[in-house]
C-alpha cells in the first residue's frame, strides 16, 4: 500500500486531534494551528486526488486490524478527494476572510473555543466524505451538528442564541430521522457497511419483500438530511443563523455544512440504496417538488428582505432548492449538475458573505439596504467581489453559476420523464429572473453614488484593499475560483462524472 493512501485517515485524525489541542492553547496560537491544519489537510487531499486519478481506481482503507463488515473502513474515490480538496480551500478562505470580525465579535477568552469548533467541523466533514459506514456517518453528523451550533452562538447577541436554539431543534429532528432510517435499514439488511447494505437491498428489492419498510427508510433518511440542509419547508432556522452569526461562521455554514449533508445524501442514494431503487421509490419526486418550490419561494423571500445578509441567506434556500431539483430529475446528468452546483454555490455564497461584510463595514456596520448606497465606491474590492458573486448567482456566462444553470437545463431537457421537463425549465427561468431582481437591485444600489452631505453626516469611511490584507486576499481568491469554475468547467465536470461512475 502506497504511503499516500494513508492520507485520508491521517487528515481525519489530524483534524480530530487538533480540536482538543486548541483547547489548551491561547486564541492566537489556536488560530495558527487551525490554519496550518487546514493547509496540511488540503495538501494531503490534493495528493490523494492525484493518486486516485493516477490509478484510476477507488480503494478502501481498513480502520484497524479487522476487515470491513466487522471493523470500520473508509473509501476513497475521485469524487471524495475532489470534495475534500475543495472543502479545505473554501474553509481556509472563509477563515481568512473573517479574521477581523472574529476578533471583534468573539470574547478574547473564547477565541480558542472557536477554533476547536472549526477543527472538529472539518474532521466531521472529512469523515462524512470518506466514510463507507452508515453508523460512522451518523456519529460524525452529531459532531457536525453540535459544532455548527457552537459556531452560530459564539457571537453572543440575542438573535444568534435564538437562531442557534432553532437550528439545534431542527437539526436534531433531522438527525433523529436519519438515525431512524439507519435503524430500519440495519434491521432489514443486518449491515451498517454501505457496500454490504447495497448488496442486501438489491436482493430484497429483487425478492419484492419488505417493500414498505424499505420505502420508509429511504424517506426518513431523505427527509432527515433535507431538514439538516434546509430544503424549502424546513428552512425556518436558516436566515437568522446565517444572518447574525459571525462572518466566517455564516460563510462556513452556508458553503460547507449544508453541502456536507447533501454529499452524504448522494452517497446514500448511490452507495447504500442504489440509484435505480431510489428512482423507483418515488421519493425523489417529492424532493423534486419541494426543490422547485424552494427555488421560487427562497427567491421571493429574498426580494422582500431589506437586510443584506438575510437576503443572501434566503438566496441559499433557493440554491439548495436547485440542488434537490437536480436529485429529483433522477438522471445521472441531474446528479452531476447538482454536485457541480454544490461546488459552484459553495464558492459563490462564501464570496457573497465576505463581500457583504466588506460593504457593510463602510456603511457604518449597517446591514440595511438603503445604507449601502454607493458602498461600491467606498470599498472597491468588496464592491467588485459582490458584483462577481451576484452575476454568478444570476447565471451570467463566464461565472460559475452559469455553468451549473446550463447543466441543470441540459439535464432537464434530457430527462426521460417528460412530465418533469417543463416544470424544470420553467422553474429555472422564473428563478433566474427572481435572482436577477434582488441581486441586480443590490448591485445597482452599490454603484449609485451617495450624496456628499449624507456621507459626511453618517461618517461613512473608505476602506482600501491594503487595510485588511487577509480579507482582500480571500476575496481575490474567491473571484479567481469563481472565474476558474466558470471558464474551465470541463475538467471538473469530467472529474465529477468519473467519481460518480466509481460510486455506482
Amino acid at each position, binding site marked *: 500500500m502506497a504511503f499516500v493512501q*494513508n492520507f485520508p485517515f491521517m487528515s481525519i485524525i489530524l483534524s480530530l486531534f487538533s*480540536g*482538543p489541542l486548541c483547547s*489548551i492553547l491561547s486564541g492566537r496560537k489556536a488560530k495558527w494551528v487551525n490554519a496550518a491544519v487546514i493547509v496540511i489537510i488540503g495538501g494531503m487531499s490534493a495528493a490523494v486526488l492525484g493518486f486516485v486519478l493516477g490509478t484510476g481506481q477507488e480503494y478502501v482503507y481498513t480502520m484497524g486490524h*479487522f476487515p470491513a*463488515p466487522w471493523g470500520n473502513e473508509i473509501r476513497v474515490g475521485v469524487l471524495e478527494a475532489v470534495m475534500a480538496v475543495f472543502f479545505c480551500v473554501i474553509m481556509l478562505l472563509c477563515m481568512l476572510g473573517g479574521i477581523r470580525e472574529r476578533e471583534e465579535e468573539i470574547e478574547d477568552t*473564547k477565541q480558542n473555543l472557536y477554533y476547536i469548533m472549526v477543527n472538529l467541523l472539518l474532521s466531521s466533514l472529512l469523515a462524512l466524505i470518506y466514510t463507507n459506514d452508515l453508523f460512522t456517518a451518523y*456519529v460524525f453528523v452529531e*459532531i457536525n451538528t453540535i459544532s455548527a451550533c457552537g459556531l452560530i452562538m459564539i457571537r453572543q447577541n440575542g438573535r444568534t442564541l435564538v437562531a442557534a436554539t432553532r437550528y439545534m431543534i431542527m437539526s436534531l429532528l433531522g438527525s433523529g430521522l436519519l438515525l431512524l432510517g439507519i435503524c430500519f435499514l440495519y434491521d432489514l439488511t443486518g449491515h451498517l457497511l454501505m457496500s454490504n447494505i447495497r448488496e442486501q437491498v438489491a436482493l430484497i428489492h429483487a425478492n419484492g419483500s419488505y417493500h414498505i419498510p424499505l420505502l*420508509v427508510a429511504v424517506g426518513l433518511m431523505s427527509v432527515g438530511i433535507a431538514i439538516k440542509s434546509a430544503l424549502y419547508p424546513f428552512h425556518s432556522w436558516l436566515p437568522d443563523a446565517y444572518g447574525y452569526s459571525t462572518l466566517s461562521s455564516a460563510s462556513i455554514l452556508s458553503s460547507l455544512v449544508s453541502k456536507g449533508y447533501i454529499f452524504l445524501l448522494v452517497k446514500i442514494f448511490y452507495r447504500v440504496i442504489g440509484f435505480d431503487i431510489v428512482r423507483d421509490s418515488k421519493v425523489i419526486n417529492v424532493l423534486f417538488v419541494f426543490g422547485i418550490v424552494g427555488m421560487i419561494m427562497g427567491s421571493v423571500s429574498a426580494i422582500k428582505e431589506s437586510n443584506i445578509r438575510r437576503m443572501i441567506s434566503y438566496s441559499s434556500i433557493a440554491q439548495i432548492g436547485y440542488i434537490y431539483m437536480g436529485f429529483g430529475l433522477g438522471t445521472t446528468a441531474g446528479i452531476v449538475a447538482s454536485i457541480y452546483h454544490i461546488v459552484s454555490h459553495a464558492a459563490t455564497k462564501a464570496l457573497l458573505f465576505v463581500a457583504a461584510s466588506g460593504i457593510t463595514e463602510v456603511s457604518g456596520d449597517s446591514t440595511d439596504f438603503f445604507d449601502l448606497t454607493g458602498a461600491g465606491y467606498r470599498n472597491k474590492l468588496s464592491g467588485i467581489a459582490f458584483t462577481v458573486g451576484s452575476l454568478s448567482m444570476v447565471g451570467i456566462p463566464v461565472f460559475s453559476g452559469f455553468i451549473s444553470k446550463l447543466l441543470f437545463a441540459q439535464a432537464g431537457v434530457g430527462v426521460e420523464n417528460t412530465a418533469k421537463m417543463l416544470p424544470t425549465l420553467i422553474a429555472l427561468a422564473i428563478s433566474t429572473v427572481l435572482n436577477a431582481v434582488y441581486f441586480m437591485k443590490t448591485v445597482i444600489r452599490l454603484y449609485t453614488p451617495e450624496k456628499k452631505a449624507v456621507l459626511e453626516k453618517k461618517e461613512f469611511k473608505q476602506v482600501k484593499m491594503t487595510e485588511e490584507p487577509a480579507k482582500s486576499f480571500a476575496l481575490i481568491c474567491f473571484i479567481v475560483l469563481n472565474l476558474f469554475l466558470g471558464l474551465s468547467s470541463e475538467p471538473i465536470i469530467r472529474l465529477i462524472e468519473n467519481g460518480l461512475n466509481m460510486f455506482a
Partner: protein
Amino acid sequence: MSKKVSQEKYEKTRSYRMKQWFDGTRDPFLNTVEMKPQKVFSEDKETLERRAEDRKKLRERIYDTAGNTEVRVFRKFYRVASVLFCICLVVMLLAAVSGLPTFGNPGNPVNNEVAARYIENGLQETGAVNIVTGMILDYRAFDTLGESHVLFIATCTVLILLRLDKSKKGSHGIGYEAEEDRIYEPKNDVILQTVARILVPPIVIFGIYVILGGHLGPGGGFSGGAVIGAGLILYVNAFGFAKTERFFHEKTYKRLSFCALACYALAKSYSFYTGANHIESMIPLGTPGAILSSGLILILNICVGLVVAGTMYTFYVMFRKGAY
C-alpha cells in the same frame, strides 16, 4: 370521653414533646428552637409594576393577539393540522414497523456473519471478555473515537454558552443578587456533608472499578466516567467550590481531556495504521480475564472514562455557577 388533662400536665407528657418535635418548635438535643416563620417571597411594588408594564409592552409591541383574526384562524388550523399530521405519521411508521422482520426470529437478516464473528471470535481477537467492550473499542473503535469527541465538543459548546469571563462581570445593579445566586456557595449542611463524606469515596472507587473492569464484565469508560462524575457533583454540592478548586480547575479539565483524547487518537492511529498497512501490531492481547489484557482496550477505557467524568462535572459546574 377522654379525661381532660390540664395544660401544665399535658406539657409534661411524651406526646406533647413528640408533637413539639413534629412541629419543629423544640429539638430533643438543642431544646427550644427559636422559630422563625419562613419569609413569604414577596416583591416590592416597584418591581411588580415594572414587570407588569414590561409584559404589557411586550404584548403590545410583538403580539397583537386580540384583534388579529388571522392568527386565531391560523392557530385553530395549526392545531387540527398538527393532530392530523401526527396521526398520519403514526400510521405510516406503524405500517413500516409491522412490515419489519419479526423480532427475535433466528432467521432475521440481523443474525448474519457479522454478529456471528463478534460472538464466536470476539474473545480471541480482542482479548476482551466483555464482547460489547471489544466491539466498541476494538472492532469499531473509529466510531467510539468520534463519540468521545462528541462529548468533548458538547462541553466546549456549553462553555461558549455559559462560561462567565471576568471581563464580562458588570456593575451590581438592581436584582443582582436574585440573578447571581451562583455566587453563593452551598450552605454548610451537616446531613449532606456527612452523607457525602461516607458516600463519595465508595462512589469514586466504584467508578474506577467500572472503568478498569470494562473489558472483563459489564461496564466501561462511559458508565464508569458517569459514576465518577456523579461522585464529584455530590462532593461539590456538599463542600462547595472552594474545596474542589484545589484539585479540579478549568485548566485541569482541559489538560485532562486533551491528554485523554490525544492518547486515544494516538493509540488508535497506531492500530489503524498498522491494520491498514498489514503490519503486525506489537501490542500483546494478554490472557483473557486478567486485568492487564485485551491490548489497548484498558487504556482506551481509561481515556473515555476521564473525558466522560470531566464532561459530567463541567456540565454541572457551568449550569450551577458559570465558572470553575
